[in-house]
């Protein structure tokens, strides 16, 4: 396991020896075990692994949705004790409130800001995810991909320090997916937003990430953390790129 040199241990996310056990009908089910991970400010981290290996659970721990875990998770030195506006999430299912329009769903997380600021952030993020014209649509009037984009806008509008995304682009057609990937990536770099992306797309993970985390199941562990020290924009055909991609694939085949 290698750690990237530029990890900023004081400002970044520090995950130390973390374990999580669910109970199913009284019997313990270890879901995560011995997780070590450092994510520096502004880093883009891709997480890949078979389904059921605890990727979503790890994101939930980072967000603070699971109170009961072993080990230590801290952001900027402060232990995580619950959700915070500094940490945003895009769930695997969009979870828009069905009784609110796209606009009102995005506005939910902007409580306490001035009205003009709220309007501006809504407009900005609706444009970003390409939902102009659907401002006043209800979730049931959107396709799955559009709803997922609205959920991305809702998370981005809060301008969190860390944004974790749980396979958010799976439901999108490939054109929209590539465009959104580009946009998300651009925002992340521009605003130094840390992004943790769970994805099935190994090629994409290698293309974007500063490091790729490969997980293995039963119980969920980190099999390998593979740093990608290549300049952007990356050349998908370059020898280094192909080599790194093969390393990720190899790690996946345990």
């Amino acid at each position, binding site marked *: 396991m290698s750690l990237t040199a530029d990890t900023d241990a004081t400002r970044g996310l520090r995950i130390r020896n973390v374990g999580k056990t669910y109970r199913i009908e009284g019997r313990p089910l270890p879901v995560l075990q011995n997780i070590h991970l450092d994510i520096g400010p502004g880093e883009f981290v891709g997480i890949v692994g078979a389904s059921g290996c605890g990727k979503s659970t790890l994101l939930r721990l980072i967000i603070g949705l699971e109170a009961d875990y072993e080990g230590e998770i801290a952001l900027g030195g402060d232990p995580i004790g619950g959700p915070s506006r500094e940490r945003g999430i895009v769930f695997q299912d969009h*979870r828009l*409130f069905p009784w609110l329009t796209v606009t009102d769903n995005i506005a939910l997380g902007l409580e306490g800001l001035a009205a003009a600021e709220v309007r501006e952030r809504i407009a900005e993020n609706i444009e970003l995810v390409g939902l102009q014209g659907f401002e006043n649509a209800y979730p049931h009037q959107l396709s799955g991909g559009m709803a997922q984009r609205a959920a991305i806008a809702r998370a981005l509008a809060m301008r969190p320090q860390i944004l974790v995304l749980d396979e958010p682009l799976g439901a999108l057609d490939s054109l929209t997916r590539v465009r959104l990937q580009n946009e998300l990536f651009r925002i992340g770099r521009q605003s130094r937003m840390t992004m943790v992306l769970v994805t099935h797309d190994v090629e994409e993970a290698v293309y974007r990430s500063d490091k790729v985390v490969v997980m293995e199941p039963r119980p969920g562990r980190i099999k390998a953390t593979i740093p990608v020290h290549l300049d952007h924009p990356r050349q998908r055909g370059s020898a280094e790129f192909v080599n790194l991609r093969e390393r990720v694939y190899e790690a996946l085949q345990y």
Partner: protein
Amino acid sequence: MTDITIGTVKKAPRRGAVRIWRGAALPLALLGAWAIVPHLLSAPHPLLVPLDEVLAAPFTDTSGREVWESLVQTLLRYGAGFALGAVAGLALGLLVGASGLADRLISPSFNAVRQIALFAWIPLLTAWFGNGEGSKLAFIALSAFFPVALNTHDGLRTIGRGYMEVAAVLKLSWGRRVTKLLLPGALPSIFIGLQIGLITAWLGTVGGEYMIGVGRGLGIFIAEARGQFRMDLVLVGVIFLALIGFAANVAFRRLFEPLIRWQGARP
């Protein structure tokens, strides 16, 4: 007449004109018979008052004209009692549905008290509040209270955990949690509770009047007419009861159905 849909609120199926007329055939035939048959009898029977006499009674008969004042009193009582009970039921349902502690403290007692048959409250209420307006209002409120509280609680319980997590992640304040998540999320169920409460409160209004007596109101009007063996006035009262029950249900749907339109097109 009043159809209660327990479970999910669905839009009433649009009945075609044909179906409406087919459904109306039986009542219309009965009305026709009622209008004609009593006139064919050689001697008038006190239990068989012709339809036209019943319809004329509220306008021509001295005792019959009292139905209007009774109607106004009953409607006021119904409205006030229902509002009281619905607000209390909503408040309790929200409290118990939103707070686990309140749920554990209150729900067992609530469920025990709920088992008491509604009309068994009347002796208790009259002992506490006397035979006047207080008892009647309390009884109407109580009859609306239980279904509203129950369905509000139920509605909150069924809001998906995923939405609660979104509220936590977005750090919604308590006020927003209630107005943007709990209330709208529970609204379809609250809607059912209010709809049932409207009907039970109507039963409570008339039943309470009939059983407690004293004062004015349709229930009392009917009780007195029956005491004087005025079958025509009893029927006048009953027709008014049916019309109001029906109108309340229709008005309620018109008013509140647009509020849950968002769930209409969900798969």
